[in-house]
């Protein structure tokens, strides 16, 4: 170790990380991160302030970053003049049902694939992996025809059923179950637990984090899904929020304030879920990224 290097390494050892001066690369990277964060956040910020500007100020084309006056007319307007309450109910019901069904069925499916020995389980898993490669959009016509034939268009069931196919949840669960040492299952077997008990009393509770993470990404995905609900719900009575807000535009021409207000309202639940479960969401994204990578 050279004499020069000594003081610096001591500084690292004694000082907290914050005390350490950033080197040039650090500064550049930090600035870059800030820039990207700002760029990502700006549209959201713009939507929020536009929604609380008076209509006149929005239309006048002023690009001020702060409203001259805060008004909630846009919000009051969409509350009074659209079916947003119904859309909210539809969104909540469908998203929660989708989340619950996807979690329970995927956990069961993944448990079977991971822990049980039955003919064809390899092939089934390969098929599920293959489903993962097929985007929803490619199947949407089939879904539509199928749901139409079942007479499920414009019903909650019609919105929900095609969205129950979430292979990534099965894949993440299977990887989780594969990683549990087999002794846990054997100990439970010796403790007279059947497979359902092993799944719901041992495997899932052993790490609720996995389930919480998967439930959150499923919920967010279901809440934000647009294309299928847009096709499946043609009447306002069964529209979900993302579909419904397209109606705002249609009804009033281009009224930016109201449009932005409905966008903010539509995004609110996801924002709340995200803020509460921030860590879990990140974990979920990493879990599913691990599958994709």
């Amino acid at each position: 170790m050279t004499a020069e290097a000594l003081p610096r390494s001591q500084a690292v050892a004694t000082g907290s990380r914050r005390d350490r001066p950033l080197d040039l690369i650090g500064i550049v990277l930090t600035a870059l991160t800030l820039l990207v964060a700002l760029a990502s956040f700006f549209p959201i910020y713009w939507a929020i302030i536009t929604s609380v500007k008076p209509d006149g100020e929005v239309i006048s084309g002023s690009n001020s970053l702060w409203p001259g006056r805060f008004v909630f007319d846009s919000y009051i307007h969409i509350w009074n003049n659209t079916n947003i309450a119904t859309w909210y109910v539809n969104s909540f019901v469908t998203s929660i049902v989708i989340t619950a069904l996807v979690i329970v069925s995927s956990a069961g499916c993944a448990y079977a694939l991971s822990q049980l020995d039955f003919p064809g389980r390899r092939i089934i898993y390969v098929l599920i992996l293959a489903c993962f490669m097929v985007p929803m959009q490619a199947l949407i016509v089939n879904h539509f025809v199928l749901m139409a034939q079942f007479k499920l268009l414009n019903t909650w069931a019609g919105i929900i059923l095609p969205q129950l196919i979430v292979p990534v949840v099965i894949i993440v669960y299977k990887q989780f179950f594969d990683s549990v040492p087999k002794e846990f299952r054997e100990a439970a077997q010796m403790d007279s637990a059947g497979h359902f008990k092993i799944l719901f009393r041992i495997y899932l509770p052993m790490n609720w984090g996995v389930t919480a993470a998967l439930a959150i990404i499923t919920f967010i995905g279901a809440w934000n899904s647009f294309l299928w609900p847009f096709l499946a719900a043609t009447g306002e009575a069964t529209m979900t929020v993302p579909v419904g807000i397209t109606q705002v535009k249609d009804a009033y021409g281009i009224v930016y304030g109201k449009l932005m207000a409905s966008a903010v309202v539509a995004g609110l639940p996801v924002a709340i879920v995200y803020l509460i479960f921030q860590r879990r969401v990140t974990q979920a994204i990493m879990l599913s990224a691990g599958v994709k990578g």
Partner: protein
Amino acid sequence: MADIVLSDVSKSYGQVQVLDSVSMHIKSGEFIVFLGPSGCGKSTLLRMIAGLEEVNGGQIHIGDTRVDQLPPNQRGVAMVFQNYALYPHMTVRENMSFGLQNVGTDKAEIARRVEDAARMLEIGALLERRPSQLSGGQRQRVAIGRAIVREPRAFLLDEPLSNLDASLRVRTRVELAQLHQRIGTTMVFVTHDQTEAMTLASRIVVMNNRRIEQIGTPMEVYSRPASRFVAAFVGSPAMNFLPVSSIAESDGQAVVNAGGVSIATEIPIANLPSGDGLTLGVRPDALKVTAGGSISGVVEIMERLGDRTLVHVRLPDGSLVVAEDGGKSALEPGATVSLAAARSEMHIFDAEGIAYHSS
């Protein structure tokens, strides 16, 4: 009470045979240890008794019941896993109660059994903790406790001490022996550690290469090993092996020429096979440093253990043997020593490894 009887039990994984026609009779209340090198099939055999591994051939009876087709929970045995497999999200009490709840034992009875077991294992204060809040030794007790509350006909333990550090391992070994004395239930214990086997077992089942080499009490296995494998595997320091160059007779007993010296045995020469490939086996404790000994050699290394000293001696033909001297041995490397071999403790092994002992 129930005996465990294995008859011609075999096991293969695909093309690979892991156990070949294994038979044994474990008497009720015995402490049986399966001993053998890693990969010899001990765990597989234990797991077949537990019902966690399918039996490919043969039968297993526990008491009067044939169990090899029964699911694990109907065999009346409890298992302690090497990694304990305590359910991490349950408290110690829940871990111990889970199996009883599943078979519908009533609450008061479960509470009584858990309290009893906890008192016996001195884990009463830990009942509301989770496994992550326990030390290795405590987890091990909980794993045993979870087995005890089921009041099984036999305990199956797969290397239960191997995750403990050395001093805890010795202490737990003693406690396990005490526990067995107290409750008297059959225990089947798997280990690759011959010291554990020697200290715990009523009988040791020495296994190697898909089959049983010998079943016997620790002293039988130690002093009358059935094969060269057993002789080499059991005992520390290990037995010395010297190729036999020729055999002479004295009073019907074999006198062998090995290591360049002549060594008298009490093995009847009539029992020995004719032909080459014989090996003499002698444990270090049967080869003592003595002033008037008939075997002479040169000291290479001294290993002082305090109460005794292991002396590595180079024999005239160049082979190296380990002999024993007292704790205060005054020998130095390079010194010439004479050794005396205890005649009754000599073993001869033929080319197939079969052992011949004093009658």
